[in-house]
């Protein structure tokens, strides 16, 4: 097992940001623009409306799931910090204390 908590958190944050940044709003604008372009009776409008609603739902759901994934991963990083991750850091600190790192003298 090899875990870098800080990097995990960074990845989690970026993935969350991708999820939260997914903006399906311009699709709503596409329907508005189509209504303005085709006033009156056009079959495209209702079909486009349905397409946009479904696709926006898909994008928004994916965005939510990505954000949730990011949160779960950040939580996992915290869990590791509590056990393995924490233990790993102690090992590294100890190594530094034994003379393999700067700023510490052997004890």
């Amino acid at each position: 097992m090899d875990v870098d908590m800080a990097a995990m958190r960074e990845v989690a944050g970026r993935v969350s940001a991708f999820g939260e940044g997914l903006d399906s709003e311009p699709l709503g604008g596409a329907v508005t623009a189509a209504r303005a372009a085709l006033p009156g009776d056009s079959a495209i409008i209702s079909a486009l409306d349905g397409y946009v609603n479904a696709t926006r739902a898909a994008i928004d759901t994916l965005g939510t799931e990505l954000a949730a994934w990011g949160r779960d991963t950040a939580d996992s990083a915290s869990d590791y910090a509590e056990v393995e991750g924490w233990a790993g850091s102690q090992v590294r600190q100890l190594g530094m204390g034994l003379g393999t790192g700067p700023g510490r003298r052997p004890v």
Partner: protein
Amino acid sequence: MTMRVSTLLGWRPSDLGGSAAGVQRVRAAVEEAESGLGIQIRRLEEVWVSEAGAVAAGAVKRLRRRLAEVAENLGPARRTLLAAGDAFAAAQGLLVRAGDLAADNDGVMRDDGSVVPPAAPVAAPGGTIAWSPTAHAAQVSACADAATMAREALDAATEADRDAARALRALTAGDGPIGKLVTAIESRALPSAGADPVEVAAWWASLSPAEQDQLIADCPRRLGNLDGLPAAVRDVANRRVLADALLEERAKIAALEALLARLMLAMPESFDSPGLSGGDLALPGVVGVEGIALAGERNAGAVARQALAEAKERLAMLAAVDRQLNKPRGVPASLFLLDTTVPGRAAIGYGDLDAAANVAVLVPGMNSRVTNYMGAISANAARVARLALDIEDNNPVKTGATATLAWIGYGAPVGAEVATTAFAEAGAPRLASTLNGLQAAQGALGQDPHLTVLGHSYGSLVSGLAATGDVPVDDLVLFGSPGAGVRTTEAFSVPAGHVYAGEARGDFVADLDAFGPDPVRLPGVTPFQTDGGFHPLADGDTLASAGHSEYYAEDSESLWNIAAVVTDRSEKVTVGSPKDAGDWMRTALGVVGVQKGLNLGWY
């Protein structure tokens, strides 16, 4: 629709480009996110190398694939809009030319595209008019051409409109590319943990087998404990969760033991020196920076040992479930519930919970935690299931197959905690949800199981409280009960005459009346024998139970009576209850209490 001239001329086909541009903007954003995720996935695989890391990477990879599919399928939508715009522009151009042609020939175009040609001039009486029949015929002909062109333009626009709409709908249809994606994504919107089991069952039944398989693969943690899902589905999901948790915990323990070994080697003298904290050593002028570092390393040993102890505790809990799940008990086992957080919750089913005509849930009492009690309650549940199987096999009157559930689904009180009803009040809703889930899962298949709750000791209080709510319980059996939280059986939602209570000789807990009157003495309760002797279902003698913990004992009269109720053969229950020292003492106390005017609780 019928396309009109005014409609087509009122459209601004080039503006559909703006609509297509909106689609393109979203597509670009989705592609950017998808590309960025690729980088993060590669990074993740470098920095989180473990079983859990692989699972997490797999999950985000699946999300990335879906994003790529969304991006890919936004393309056809954009192209459809642009193509429709081009087609409308062409049709509009043709219609304008038709209008011009009609106008040039003195024709009048109507809104339906037809053209009224100029009339042949009529000379006034006595007068003359100069006109050329040939020229007029040419005008009429041109107007007819204009009408044809207009019809073609209107038809082309109608067709383009219809084709574009059809193409867009195809993208969102269930079998279209986006449609499949949307269906897959929407199906992932799982009901929440506390959702109505009936709705959960209906939602699950609405999914295709492929969608169900995908969800089990993607979300075992969320499905495993979802009341209303079939037990078979929960079993697959929970076994995966259990396997992952066991791997993870064993890896943690190995890492921590390795750390402790290194610490011991590095600091054999100071490793086990308790007492100094970082704060103590950081006192100015005492030991300085080196002391803080030393304290940190001492804490490293202490904290690592604490973490190791916790990991071992969790592993013991998980292993207890794993052991029982894989222990041959004569009836197939399934993992119905698994909460991996210490002290944990778990439930193992024996028999087919999704198909059995009779389903019984065993609710244990105090001190029944997963680690220490999963074995005992599993043995009891399997014993009831096996006996039910024997009874069914050996009786001419059939009531159907039986399945049992060894349920440690609430945090049972430990030690002195038993004095409070708080644990039962917290557990009763969980039990109610479990019962409603069992009913709903079978209900989705058009079945209505005969559902029995078996509450032992403090578990009888949990069962009693749950049975006061909206639960589909057909029979309630309480034994070794210190009170079921009610003063009258009318408080139960169980059908009248379907509450049973047992008390073994020497079971002092059953005489405590701590949480309500002894159920054995409640009007409307059928007391059942536990003293041993002839039992009609056994068609022979049975053994006596004694004390607080022998109600499920093999060949006991108590077990036969429990099985009689569980298999819906309550007419075979041997009725009656022994009166032991505890009962006499209670009677005496009650008399004294009345004589002295004391309030002795439930007496």
